């Protein structure tokens, strides 16, 4: 299993869920920009599941040397790489912040995804799971830089799914709504609409097993986003969302 963004709590919960369900992985490749935290997770799954893993430092903001990943192969890829950044007004006009949001969620991430997708393509099997966001379903004033980067990522995953379909590779787009993670700590989220990483992992695992194309977490978000997507633009532009 290959995990991009392996310090994400959802990614970690998914790894644990898969192992609990008895999935076997020769090795789990934990990509991260935060070695300390990823190392602790690697030890954790070794202790808990006797699962071998390798932590690989990947900083998307630096040039990537793909040669060093040549030996890596797997039937399952979970991409949780993401960066929320500052959704505030100051954040909007902070160019560094904007660039970083676009880079990490989309422009610097896609080449890495492509690199691994090619491996899946030549194996003609496996599943690629990408964590996008409901924020990508429609741009809203509160966080549309993040939202637009996620929209691009959603479109990428949809295209990838289409491209890999007759190559027998399954692509699953996950669109979490509110999540109770470090990324959103302290934000006033409605608890009824908020999933814990463990809950999210359970849903994602189910969607993976059922070979779903797109999965919302929690499912109620598919209804909410259906409504939000269908509000006519002339009304939507006046809303404070």
């Amino acid at each position, binding site marked *: 299993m290959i995990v991009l963004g392996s310090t994400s709590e959802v990614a970690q919960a998914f790894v644990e869920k898969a192992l609990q369900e008895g999935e076997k992985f020769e090795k789990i490749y934990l990509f991260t920009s935060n070695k300390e935290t990823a190392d602790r997770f690697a*030890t954790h799954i070794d*202790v808990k599941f006797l699962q071998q893993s390798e932590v690989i430092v990947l900083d998307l903001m630096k040039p990537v040397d793909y040669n060093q990943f040549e030996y890596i192969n797997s039937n399952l890829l979970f991409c949780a790489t993401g960066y929320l950044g500052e959704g505030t007004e100051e954040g909007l006009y902070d160019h560094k912040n904007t660039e970083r949001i676009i880079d990490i969620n989309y422009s610097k991430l896609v080449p890495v995804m492509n690199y691994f997708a090619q491996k899946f393509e030549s194996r003609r099997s496996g599943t690629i799971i990408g964590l996008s966001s409901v924020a990508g379903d429609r741009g809203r004033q509160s966080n549309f830089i993040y939202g637009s980067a996620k929209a691009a990522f959603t479109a990428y995953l949809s295209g990838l799914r289409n491209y890999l379909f007759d190559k027998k590779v399954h692509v699953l787009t996950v669109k979490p709504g509110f999540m109770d993670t470090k990324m959103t700590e302290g934000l006033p989220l409605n608890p009824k609409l908020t999933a814990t990483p463990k809950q999210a992992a359970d849903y994602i695992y189910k969607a993976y097993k059922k070979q779903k194309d797109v999965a919302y977490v929690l499912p109620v978000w598919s209804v909410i986003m259906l409504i939000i997507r269908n509000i006519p633009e002339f009304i939507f532009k006046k809303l404070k969302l």
Partner: protein
Amino acid sequence: MKPNFVQKVTNWGNFPIVEKEMKSEDSFKEIREFVLNHNEVIARGNGRCYGDSSLGEHIFSTKRLNKFISFDRLNGIIECESGVLLSDILEIAVPQGYFLYVTPGTKFVSVGGAIASDVHGKNHHAEGCFSEYVIDFKLMIENGDIITCSREENTDKFWATIGGMGLTGIILSAKFKLKNIESAYIRQESIKADNLDEIFRLFEESESWTYTVAWIDCLQKGDHIGRSILMRGEHAFQHELPQNIQKNPLRLKKKFEPTVPFYFPGFVLNALTVKIFNFLYYKKQSKKEVKSFTDYETFFYPLDFVKDWNKIYGKSGFIQYQMMIPKETGKEGMKKILETIANSGNGSFLAVLKLYGKENPQAYNSFPFEGYSLALDFKVNSQLKKLIEKLDDIVQEYNGKIYLTKDSMSRSSLTNYLKNVQSSKFVSLQHKRIINNNK
């Protein structure tokens, strides 16, 4: 949206509820910053203490310190971060033939909390408190440094932290011993006792059993005061188990786990419903003595089976009153306590009576000493404070004390027993309350 870490926080009793800053981090660098940038910090694990002990002006939640560090499967030594729950440990330890040496009545407490409360269980008389099996732990102290505390290293901090209610720093991780078991089952005997004399005699007779505890009907009066059921148990050996579980003795079947979906309205729980429940509970067992094999979950954690059971006490919350008095005058004192409760009519579903063994003199901040302990729940209402006053009077008269992990309103003379925990950095609302009331 700007993050705002001030939020409503409350522990298991849903009383008190406070609005305070609470944050959790998983990187030690950020935890250090949190400690250095705030005054009055207190660590909070899974919020399973009942009152205000893990509440403070700035709460550090250990929920993201949830990783295992090592598990020596040969010698049964485990090391994990402090937010790991006892239930997480059981999940990996039991299939390997290991169990916790000491466990409280819920498995949903964190390891950090277990040390800070120095929790005890049904085997206190035989195997002591949680700390007996702690090899070492890592503690973040006032200046943000991380020190290792054990019986050899930083011993002052080691013993002050054990039962120290988080007032010495933030426990980041701990290493401790597990006990060998052959099966996940308990060989159990439950014996009915008609009154206080009988249950006290049963406790003394059962001293050679590893686990003993009694459920007591605290609404009985007169001759029936102390009507109770004693449960005693031993980890079952594989060979003594019934055939159908002998093959796979370390695996439990998955059970249906109900949830209390919402806070019960206040009127649901009253003297009558409690009386009926207690009556049924006592009558459920028709024989004087029943021997059985029961899985460890049912034996140790009967209430964990119902998720969010605290909601049955309604939105106003409840307190758990846990007191203890020395063995010599135990019966007399307990009789007075039970009479007072029965007369108040404010009883609880499951009151728990237990005989403790000798204390470990080194663990000076731990709650238990040799004597009898009674724990029971009271719904918070306008008359509660008065009842607690009366009960505190009796506990004081018999030289007893109150368990800090459960306390939220007892008087300071019964709760102000911690030593070597003065710090301006690590302060809980409970500690402030106790110190202020003592002035």
